């Protein structure tokens, strides 16, 4: 029997994660015994238009981080195109602080397959790919077994579940690049090329994999689809707040007593998530800051955390819901060190395609390392903010923004920590300031 990564919380609304913890939850029999493939059959009955309409009604938004309305994305895929259509699952879960897709693939892979099948019906596609991040090597083996079982039991292939619907699923492993979570870089990588982002337009919906119409979504997005079809878009939308349908698998990490992945409805109060769902901060220490949705989001100060966790509320607070990777930082956290760690990650992951991201992240990493060591002047702190702003919005893809946004927010909100570091080193006679 498998052990869950974390004990579930009674405060959760378990929809996508409802099979987590069941014995053999990843097996087809378990899936079938708990309502599996009912949504698929229903989807075949109601047909593409109705499927897309339900997904639209559900107010489901992309769970990868950008939060684009899923129903709208599906409606962009031309169904009567001369080229084949592809369904692609983005399982390149790489945003620091995010660890939900692996659970969905490990504990309920059939839910994902069913979501792909329904998407296949919606855009008249016969082929799907699951692009799994290179570091999730063990999941590839696991998914291979699942796909094999699905084929041998007739739930993939020429005649899915005896319905005459044809659908094939292929697995593809990444090679360990954050950039390949960007949908177009993922497509290049999938096609066997160097993983660098493509120019948009054309968008993948029109010209994606092998220049064919492509429906590309996150694991969690696809996993939500069977529930939407089975219970109706209205029901799913009702779980969350207006325009923010459903639940999210929130990955709470950092300074909390019970870190883990919790399924919470959209619009859930952030402080309640930290203090009740995740058991609060160890040692009763005070909250200092929160990264709300993966390391690319602007950091929130403790005082800014009294808000509802949905796309729009977080946008209003100047941050993002992102990928659901919530990192809690208590009063002991060194924010300069945090900024450095974040920049080190993006510098390492920058694909190098465009100048501002390639050079900007490298420069900023060097500067932050220097400031972290207490070497520098107040003007250097300004320069960190300025260089980040020079990257922001000017890079080829969003990776540059992802590196810039948290840095800008940390410099703005925690400038005193940078200054203190410079002062203390100067006071110790280690360096001269000014």
């Amino acid at each position: 029997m498998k052990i869950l990564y974390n004990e579930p919380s009674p405060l959760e609304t378990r929809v996508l994660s409802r099979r987590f913890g069941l014995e053999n939850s990843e097996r087809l029999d378990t899936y079938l015994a708990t309502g599996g493939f009912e949504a698929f059959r229903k989807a075949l009955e109601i047909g593409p238009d109705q499927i897309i309409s339900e997904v639209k009604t559900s107010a489901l938004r992309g769970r990868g981080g950008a939060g684009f309305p899923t129903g709208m994305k599906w409606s962009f895929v031309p169904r009567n195109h001369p080229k084949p259509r592809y369904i692609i699952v983005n399982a390149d879960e790489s945003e620091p602080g995010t660890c939900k897709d692996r659970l969905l693939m490990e504990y309920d892979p059939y839910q994902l397959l069913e979501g792909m099948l329904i998407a296949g019906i919606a855009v008249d596609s016969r082929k799907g790919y699951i692009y799994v991040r290179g570091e999730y090597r063990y999941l590839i083996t696991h998914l291979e077994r699942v796909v094999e079982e699905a084929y041998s039991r007739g739930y993939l292939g020429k005649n899915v579940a005896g319905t005459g619907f044809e659908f094939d699923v292929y697995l593809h492993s990444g090679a360990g690049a954050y950039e390949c979570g960007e949908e177009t870089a993922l497509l290049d990588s999938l096609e066997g090329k160097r993983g660098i982002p493509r120019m948009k337009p054309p968008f993948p919906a029109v010209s994606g994999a092998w220049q064919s119409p492509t429906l590309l979504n996150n694991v969690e997005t696809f996993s939500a689809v069977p529930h939407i079809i089975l219970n109706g878009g209205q029901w799913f939308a009702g779980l969350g707040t207006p325009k923010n349908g459903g639940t999210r698998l929130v990955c709470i990490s950092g300074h909390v007593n019970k870190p883990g992945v919790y399924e919470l409805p959209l619009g859930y109060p952030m402080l309640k998530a930290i203090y009740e769902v995740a058991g609060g901060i160890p040692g009763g220490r005070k909250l200092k800051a929160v990264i709300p949705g993966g390391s690319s989001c602007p950091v929130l100060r403790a005082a800014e955390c009294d808000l509802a966790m949905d796309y729009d509320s977080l946008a209003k607070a100047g941050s993002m819901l992102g990928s659901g990777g919530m990192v809690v930082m208590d009063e002991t956290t060194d924010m300069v060190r945090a900024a450095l760690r974040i920049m080190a990650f993006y510098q390492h992951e920058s694909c190098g395609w465009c100048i501002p991201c390639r050079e900007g992240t490298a420069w900023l990493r060097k500067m932050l390392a220097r400031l972290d060591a207490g070497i520098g002047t107040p003007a250097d702190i300004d320069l960190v903010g300025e260089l980040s702003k020079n990257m922001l919005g000017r890079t080829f893809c969003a990776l540059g923004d992802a590196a810039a946004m948290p840095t800008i927010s940390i410099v703005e909100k925690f400038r005193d920590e940078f200054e203190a570091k410079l002062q203390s080193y100067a006071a110790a006679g280690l360096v001269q300031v000014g």
Partner: protein
Amino acid sequence: MAELVTLTIDGAQVQAEKGALLIDVCKARGIEIPAFCYYEGLALQAACRMCLVEVEKMPKLQPGCTLPVAEGMVVKTDTPVIHEARKSMLEFLLANHPLDCPVCDKGGECELQDMTFRYGLGESRFLENKHHVDEQQWSPVVFFDRPRCILCYRCVRICDEGVGVDALGVVQRGVVSAIAPSHGDHLECDECGMCIDICPVGALTSGMYRYKTRPWEMNHVGTICTHCSNGCKTTLGVRGGQVIRANNRDHSGINGEFLCVKGRFGWDFVNSTERAQSPMLRTNGRLEPVSWSRALMTVARKLNEVKQRGGRVGFIASNHTSNEENYYLQKLARQGLRSNNIDHHRTGDVVTLIDALAGRTDALATVADLYAAKASLVIASDLAQQQPLLHFQLRANWRHHRSRTYVVTPGPVRERKFAVKSLHAEPGRELDAVESLRDDLSKEPELVILFGDAIQGDAVRRLVAFGDSLGIPVKYVCLLDYSNSRGAIDMGLAPGLLPGYRPVAEAGLEPGMTIAEMLADASLDVLWVVGANPLRNARLAAENAFVVVNEMFLAETAQRADVIFPAASAYEKEGTVTNVCGEVQSLKKALKVMGAKTDLEIFGLVAAEMGIDLGPFQPGAVFEEIRREVRGYNVSLPVIATGGAAQSVPLNGRVPALTRAELIQSARDTLFTSGTLGRYSKNLTSVLEHPGKLYASGIETP
């Protein structure tokens, strides 16, 4: 007519073709949008982010290099935000770029330098250590200084898209990502140096040019490459009487940005230490240096003596000498010595083609046609090896216009990568293969046929008949080997033809001897060889013949000479040459090599010494005579004078072509060989691929 849209750029209403790129539209209006990665004709990258502009209703700055213009678009290219963006982008670029401009080859013609001057910050705010990697040598001609590289990917694209070699790629990622040869540490490629030429900074440098000079210390002389028949324009960089580099600096001429390894690096024969720099006279069996006057007098006396006693004189002319020299030489032979024993190494059957086309003026393709034609057919030639510019043109035509190429060759060639149909044809069976393409070809709207020396004599007539029977407009290119192979036959360097393809009978002469006949004629009294090396693989039957040689190098034929005139190369003279497509272009004198004279001067001085008047021997005066006298050569002077190419159109009234198939044979030079010139170019003989191989395109290997 393409649909037009109206947009606003910097407050002005502009009409432009719908879908045109903003950067191009701005350029046409005189508004510069700076860019490194954008390069006209190559794939779009949007990587350097220099071209960001403000577009109304778009929240972020937009790259002008990938933005198609649309109706009602409002664009600003000159705002504080954009200035600031350009500044910051250059600041990022310079972070790891070494500021070694004072020793960098590119200094003075560096795009990064220019942009920094125009748009950049005055001072650097980067205090950290720069990322450094040692310089690498990828081939004898290509060096890579990685820290200078700004990763604009132009080199990768020109190699892959432009040349079709794909020798460069990108390795690693992020700040350490780097351009690298696909063979890891070295290049196995065409060694064309296009990557060096296209590099906006000093990252890719030329093994021949590096650390030699600053660009402003050279004279830049635009002339025509003296190697193959394609006639690329090349700008020689000359300093202190030495050629230091060649590139087509202003991208003018029929080749635009293109040059192959020979054009770019094969100029060093000019300054070879083995150049003949003094006339030589055989004295007591040995060649001894003598004065010009002594050598000229000796030859003139000999010729006059032989002429008076009715002896036999033969001339073997060159594929490299100018039209003026060729014209003057045949005048010297025919008018001066009443001899029709004049020939040159013929490398393609132009004569039969001109005859078969029977006076049609629109059936000879230009180099530009190869880029514009909807379809083309290549027969029996490895274009990428033998006709590099023509290959580049066909490839560019396919890349930009999806033109359709058909290939009939005895082995794999690079065009097969993009050809719609490629057929294998054993030598002699080419036309059968061509016949099997009839259905496909007759469906094309138009066609250019390029054929090598395997198609000659009657086969040329059958090919033209085939072209006629397709019922579509067809143009032809008869492929030739060398820089003025076409001009040699146009100027009548053949025993049966006067200049302009007139039969010799018009001049009241009998056809003379061919090269083979001259070499085999035991009673030959004088043989004058001009810029050719017939004795490399043949014997001169007339053991007592007096041999005069105009040469740059003491190659096999010169070793047999009684008198050697040290000749100037094409880079040391004025005049015109005619390329494979019949396009006349102007040579510009780039330098003077001590001791050598141009062949025109040599002919003129010998004639004067002999006491015969053949007219002035200045290139301009002779060209005027050619324009008057030679059919098809009444070309536009302004076009030629401004560095352009004017196609000569030889009209033909069905003259007997007197083609002897066995006399027409290509020398089968590859990209890395070029007859005698190639042997004396260390640059060419140093490349790893030397001497290259025909019909061995690597495309079959995985």
